Each structure stands twice: as C-alpha cells, then as structure tokens.
C-alpha cells in the first residue's frame, strides 16, 4: 500500500462526502429535524480536512477549516442556517469539489483557486465573528525562563513531576513519559517521590501517587520537553529548571515543592544540581520553620504498580455484550467493498467468454450424444448463468445518485431563471448498468434544463393559464418489460406544434406544406440543428440540441418517446436496456443463417399459416388483434425458398407489437453482445453481433427498429440499399 494509492482513496472518499454534504444541504430546508443533516455536513467537511492534512494539502485544509468552523456554529445553534448561508455553503461545496479535482490532477493550488478560496472565505468570516481562538493550557512552569546562566554549572535540565491522581485512570502510564524522555536525551539521575502514598487501607490501586525528580541531559529546548507531558499537564504538576540555573534558583525550586525539603535537596545533590554545601546552607536558613525531620519512609512501588498494567481476564460486561449484538447487525449493513470499475469490466468480459465457451461445450455434448457429458455441461451452464447474473449485478448501480444531482441543478437553474420549480424524484432505487448511468447523466441534464427553460412557463403565463405558481418537474425511473424507463415530466406549456413546424421549415428540415402526424411533428425536435427557443438562453441554447440527446440514447441501445399536451405539459420517456453486455437471447433461423432476438422482447411464437390476415398488406390476426409483420427473409434478402411452414415471432417494444416471420425457431440461449464495427453503423435492423457456441457469428436484431419498419412499410428496409447484408454462413 503506497501513499499515492491512499491519496486516490482520499479523493474518492472526499467525493462521496461532498455528495453527502450537498444532499444534506439541499434537503435541509424541508427537513423538520435538521440536526442529523447538519451533523452529517459537519462531519463531511471535518473528515476532508483531517485527511487533507495528512497529505499536506494545505489549501484544502485552510479552506475546509473555515467552512467547518461555520458549520460548527450552525451545529451549536449559534447561527441559523438561512437560505443565504445554504447557498454560500453550496458554493463552498463546489469549490471544495474543484480543489479535490485539482488534487486528483496533481495541481496543488492555482491563482484562480486561491482567489476562489479567498472570496468564499471573506463571505464566511462574518459568520464566525465573536469566535476567538482558544489557546491550549500552557504548562505551569515554576522557574524563570532560561538564560540566567550566571554562576550555574549543571549541564542537565531538572524536571520535577507530580502526576495527578487520575493519570492512571485516564489511561496514561507515567513510565511511558520517562521512556519517551529517554529518546530526547540521557536521563542522568532519577528518583521517585512516593510521599503521598497512603497506608494500606486507604490505598487505591487505581490512583496515582507518584512523583518523579529527574535530571535530563539533552539538547532539546524547553518547548520540546514541556510537550512530552502534553497529555498529563492538565492534571499534573510539572516544573522545569533549565541547565546552568543559579543555586538560588534550585533552592527556590526546592522550597516551592510540597514535599520535605531535605528529601528533595538530597535528590538534587545526588543528581549533581547542587552540592551538599549549598544544600546545608539553604536548609540552615530554613531550620526555624522546619519542624519535622526529613526522613521519608515508604517503598518505591509507584513505578512497579504502573509498569505491570494488571489486566484482569477479559470479562465482558453485560452492557457491552448487549451492545455487541447490536453492532454485529450494524457491521453487516455496512459491509461494502470498493472495486475499481475496470476490474469489474474485465470480470464481465471474462464471464462473457465463459458463456460462449460453455455454450460451445454444450453444443458438443449434444453432438456426441453422451448423456453424462450432457448432464455435466448442463450443470456447468446453469452455474455460468448464475455467475453471469451475479457479475452483471455487480455493475448495477442505483439511479438515485444521478437523480439527486438534479435537485441541485433544478434549484440553481430555477433560481437563475426566476422560476419557482418543485422537483419530485421517484424510483431512485431502480438499478441500471453503471456504464449506462454514466452516459445517461449528460442527456438527462440536457432534458431537464430544456424542461425548465422551455417547458415550464414564466410566472405570468402560468397565472394566466390558471396553473399553480410553482411549476412541477418529476423524474421517475421504473422497470418495464425487460427495459428501464426514465421519465422526465413537467407541467409546463407543452410543445407548440405550429412553432415546431414553422421552425422545421425555416431550417429546411421539412418541406413547406408537408403533412405530418402529431408524433412526427414532436419527433422533429430530435432532428439535428433544431431549436425552438426564440431567444437563445444561457441555459439550453448551446448549439447542441435534442439530436445529441437522441444520439446519446441511441448509443446506449435505448429510445426516446415524447408525449406532449399543449399548455398542459410534456413527458419524455427514455427506454434503456437493462445491461449492455449480456442478454438472454432467442435464436431464430432464416436459410442457413441464425439471428438473435432479445428474449425480453419476445411475446410468443406462432405458425404463420393460421394467423395470416393479409399477405399483401403484411398483416396477421392475433386472436382479433391485427398486427403488421415483416419477413426477415425479404429484409435480409436471403436467397432460396422459404419453408412450407413459416413461423412468426411476436415481439413487443413499448406499446407496439409486430410479427417477425422466420424459417425456424431455435430456442433461448445466453447472448454476449459484441458491437458491430463502424462499417455497419448505418445498417438498420441489426444492433450487434454475438458468437454462438459453435463459433459462428450471429447478428442480433434491433427489434425496435424492426417494429418501426413493420408499422410503416413505406419506409421499409427494402428500399434502402445499405441494408443489403451478407447472410452469416456456417
């Protein structure tokens, strides 16, 4: 584990924390009990600051420190979290995010980022007014500062330590400080002071009665020595005498101590700080005041007591036990392993290969008619199927995170536009392939911006139309027959068909006077170079239009439907496949070639004969429902004669159904989708390819396109030379 990797962890972690912070900030205005949200925000900034400090990322530390302080004041209810502060904190969030991004790119601080920090800090400072920096308690030092070296000759620091009674209870081992002093220099002399040690019955083994007098030969400065006792100085008395102090200072030092003077004096003599003569002299002057003799009784057990930190057998208290059970449950809820996305991709790739290899083994087993082998390969295939599902589910992420980002966007954009808009989110727990979610975020952003900008009307218009002042925008995700649907609905003005037609004519997309159905008119907005905004606004008029959105969705093998009611609103539906990599396929044969249909889209299979309604109009009658059909043999210009008994596969996509006429039905199998090369990009009706167990290549049919072609035979494939495909042969 090296530091660079940890830094990557830090960046990931910081991103997650920032996302949590943003979510909390956005939710806070509606939150009835915002305490937990505020705490979560505080913690996010706090953690980022803490970790950034470890990496020496000072700009982040400086900035987050102030943000944290402000949040702390919010947390302690010293200031209230009003909308202005929420906005400011959101800006701080953005700035932190950009600082994190710079860190990732290896840039520590640019003039711009510094300026950004400064600007926000200036805005934050008013919230901190009246909050002084609290200094930590200094060590109580009895002696004067060093420098009074006149006449002194001792080379050592003299330290006098009286540990507080609670030192042991607070988890401090007096010996550890002595040991640490040993790393700073040489302990020349040490004596224990155990005067405070009580008699047997009063003795409490958890209380510390120890004092230490020691002489330390070191080059360390006063601060360093004082800092050794940083953790005990609040409870304990610590006095320092620098080297070369005058004899009088030592004498004064002795007098200041609570213990008997003679005893201390002897220690100092033993340590070489003063001579016996000095001591005698000093004591003589004190004689009148000293009543008792200076003999100390008692054993030096303090050190021994602390050294063997007696640990009783681990008896877990009942309370702890109960707590532990609760923790176990909690721990299970939190077990999440982070894996790099490319490792997952590799796994899914390999599973894809495994699926193909499994199918190949199975095909061979069928050929050799060996029942035991067949049994074995069947089991293997079943397992492979489970592995496939599991591997794919690893890539699934909830769309909720993407949705949540829109709360921010809607808030910002609606403020900018001066529109009041309420965003509703549904189905955030719907899972989608990670790749799809990533690629979906841009088009979705565009659609949402469009809805706010062009969809929802200005306040005056809304009032005139009798709508509530606050516009409503909803994002909804759900499963629907093998695909995921994402809906963006607004209660705005809807699409103005006349305006669209006019614009389309202006742009030369359609001819003047062309007769178009409503659906055709609405779909015009997806044509390249189309924009209905009268004035190009800052938000959505960026030259890229809905055509880019459509293109993005197409790349994900998805589709867009648009439903619009004038003056009542627009609903845009994006339909996406569950996954991009592996699907359950249904294999059909035409001539010598085989094709694959996504099984999810297959409704039923029939014989063509009894259901044929009209050969001329390509219609079948499915129990009273008339459906269009397509002969794949014709579409793909397959040579040879069709069999006498043709089959129909009824497929459904969204609301529409159609029949596909094929020669043979070959059953279900797992299909690993391989993309087709650029050469085939223009070909309609095929979406990809796959490798069969036998090693053959089969084309995967693009059912939505085929349904569309079946429904409007005039624009059928037969007219398009580009669709002339070589059939795949075995």
């Amino acid at each position, binding site marked *: 584990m090296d530091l660079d990797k*940890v830094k990557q962890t830090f960046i990931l972690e910081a991103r997650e924390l920032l996302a949590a912070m943003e979510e909390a900030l956005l939710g806070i205005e509606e939150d009835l009990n915002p305490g937990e949200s505020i705490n979560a925000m505080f913690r996010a900034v706090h953690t980022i600051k803490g970790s950034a400090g470890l990496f020496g990322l000072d700009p982040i530390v400086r900035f987050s420190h102030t943000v944290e302080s402000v949040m702390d004041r919010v947390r302690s209810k010293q200031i209230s979290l009003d909308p202005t502060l929420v906005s400011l904190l959101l800006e701080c969030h953005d700035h932190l995010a950009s600082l994190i991004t710079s860190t990732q790119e290896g840039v520590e601080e640019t003039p711009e980022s510094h300026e950004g920090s400064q600007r926000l800090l200036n805005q934050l400072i008013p919230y901190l007014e009246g909050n002084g920096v609290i200094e930590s308690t200094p060590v109580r030092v009895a002696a004067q500062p060093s420098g009074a070296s006149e006449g002194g000759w001792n080379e050592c620091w003299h330290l006098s330590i009286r540990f507080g009674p609670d030192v042991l209870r607070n988890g401090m081992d007096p010996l550890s400080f002595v040991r640490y002093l040993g790393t700073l220099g040489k302990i020349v002399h040490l004596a224990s002071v155990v005067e405070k040690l009580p008699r047997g019955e009063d003795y409490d083994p958890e209380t510390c009665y120890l004092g230490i007098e020691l002489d330390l030969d070191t080059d360390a400065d006063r601060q360093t020595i004082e800092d050794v006792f940083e953790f005990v100085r609040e409870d304990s008395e610590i006095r320092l005498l620098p080297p070369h102090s005058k004899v009088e200072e030592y004498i004064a030092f002795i007098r200041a101590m609570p213990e008997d003077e003679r005893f201390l004096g002897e220690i100092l003599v033993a340590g070489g700080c003063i001579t016996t003569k000095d001591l005698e002299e000093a004591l003589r002057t004190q004689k009148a005041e000293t009543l008792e003799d200076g003999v100390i009784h008692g054993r030096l057990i303090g050190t021994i007591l602390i050294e063997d930190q007696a640990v009783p057998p681990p008896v877990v*208290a009942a309370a702890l036990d109960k707590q532990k059970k609760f923790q176990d449950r909690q721990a299970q809820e939190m077990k999440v392993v982070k894996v790099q996305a490319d490792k997952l991709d590799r796994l899914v790739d390999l599973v894809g290969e495994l699926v193909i290899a499994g199918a190949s083994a199975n095909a061979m087993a069928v050929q050799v008619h060996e029942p035991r082998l067949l049994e074995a390969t069947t089991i293997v295939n079943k397992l492979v199927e489970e592995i496939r599902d599991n591997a794919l589910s690893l890539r699934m992420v909830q769309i909720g995170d993407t949705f949540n980002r829109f709360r921010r966007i809607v808030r910002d954009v609606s403020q900018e536009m001066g529109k009041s808009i309420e965003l509703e989110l549904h189905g955030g727990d719907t899972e989608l392939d990670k790749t799809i979610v990533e690629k979906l975020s841009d088009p979705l952003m565009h659609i949402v911006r469009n809805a706010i900008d062009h969809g929802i009307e200005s306040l005056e218009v809304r009032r005139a139309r009798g709508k509530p002042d606050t516009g409503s925008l909803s994002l909804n995700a759900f499963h629907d027959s093998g695909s995921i649907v994402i809906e963006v609905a607004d209660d705005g003005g809807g699409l103005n068909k006349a305006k669209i037609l006019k614009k389309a004519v202006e742009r030369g997309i359609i001819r003047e006077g062309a007769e178009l159905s409503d659906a055709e008119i609405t779909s015009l907005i997806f044509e390249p170079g189309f924009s209905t905004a009268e004035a190009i606004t800052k938000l959505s008029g960026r030259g890229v239009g809905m055509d880019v959105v459509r293109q993005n969705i197409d790349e994900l093998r998805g589709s867009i439907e648009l439903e619009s009611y004038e003056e009542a609103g627009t609903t845009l539906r994006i339909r996406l496949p569950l996954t991009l990599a592996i699907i359950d396929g249904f294999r059909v044969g035409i001539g010598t070639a085989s094709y694959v249909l996504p099984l999810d889209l297959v409704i039923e299979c029939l014989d063509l004969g009894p259901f044929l309604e009209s050969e001329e109009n390509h219609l079948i009658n499915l129990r009273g429902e008339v459906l269009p059909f397509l002969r794949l043999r014709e579409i793909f210009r397959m040579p040879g004669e069709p069999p006498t008994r043709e089959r129909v596969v009824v497929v459904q996509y969204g609301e529409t159904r159609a029949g596909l006429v094929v020669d043979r039905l070959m059953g279900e199998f797992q299909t690993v989708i391989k993309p087709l090369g650029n050469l085939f990009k223009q070909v309609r009706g095929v979406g990809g390819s796959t490798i069969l167990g036998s090693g053959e290549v089969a084309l995967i049919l693009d059912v939505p396109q085929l349904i569309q072609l079946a429904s409007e035979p005039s624009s059928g494939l037969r007219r398009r030379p580009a669709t002339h495909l070589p059939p795949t042969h075995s």
Partner: protein
Amino acid sequence: MAKTILIVDDSISLRQVVSIALTNAGYEVIEACDGKDALTKLTGQKVHLMISDVNMPNMDGITFLKAVRLNPSYKFTPVIMLTTEAGEEKKKEGQAAGARAWVVKPFRPEQLLVAVSKLILP
C-alpha cells in the same frame, strides 16, 4: 512482540495513512471505522493504545471512550483523541470521560507518531 494500536476513524484515507506511518514505525495496527466497529474489533484482542476520532457516525469517539472504559481489559489503555480546534465543547466532554491525550486535526503523520511514542514505544 510489537505493540498493537487501534485506529478508529470514519475516513478510510486517514486510517490508511496513519496505518502506514505506524506500521513503518514498528507498531501493529488494527483499523475500525467507528466506535461500534471498534468495540467489536477489541473483543478478544490485546490493544496497547487506541487512537480515536471524536466525530463519527453510529458511535462517536466520546461514547466509544466511555464504553471502552467499562471493559476491565481496557480500563487503563491509553487513548489518543483526534479532534479539531472547533471541537472545544467536545474536548470538555471528552475530558469528563477521561480523555487526556489530544491530537489536533489536521495533523501530519509525524506529529501523531510523536504523540504515540510519548505514550508507548514500539
């Protein structure tokens, strides 16, 4: 036998950096992501020093400290609290719970190492 240190902090990166620093200095390190996790990990373990963040989800550092002191095995184990200057209130609360060793966040790994070695040497 190397001395074992438990580090409790909800930041993975902080734990990892601290872990690296302490391991390089010759200590054994156990990581925990919050107070509850820490209490679980302490069971059946001999830990010579604990380093704990104050503000954590699920169980904060102060509650952890109080809980850990109930366990006779850890009644006298030194604990270093990681805190921020902003946490003066918490500090008082922590002192009431018996915390005396504080390292102020943000800190460099070396600073923490010094603090640790004042309490235990590897």
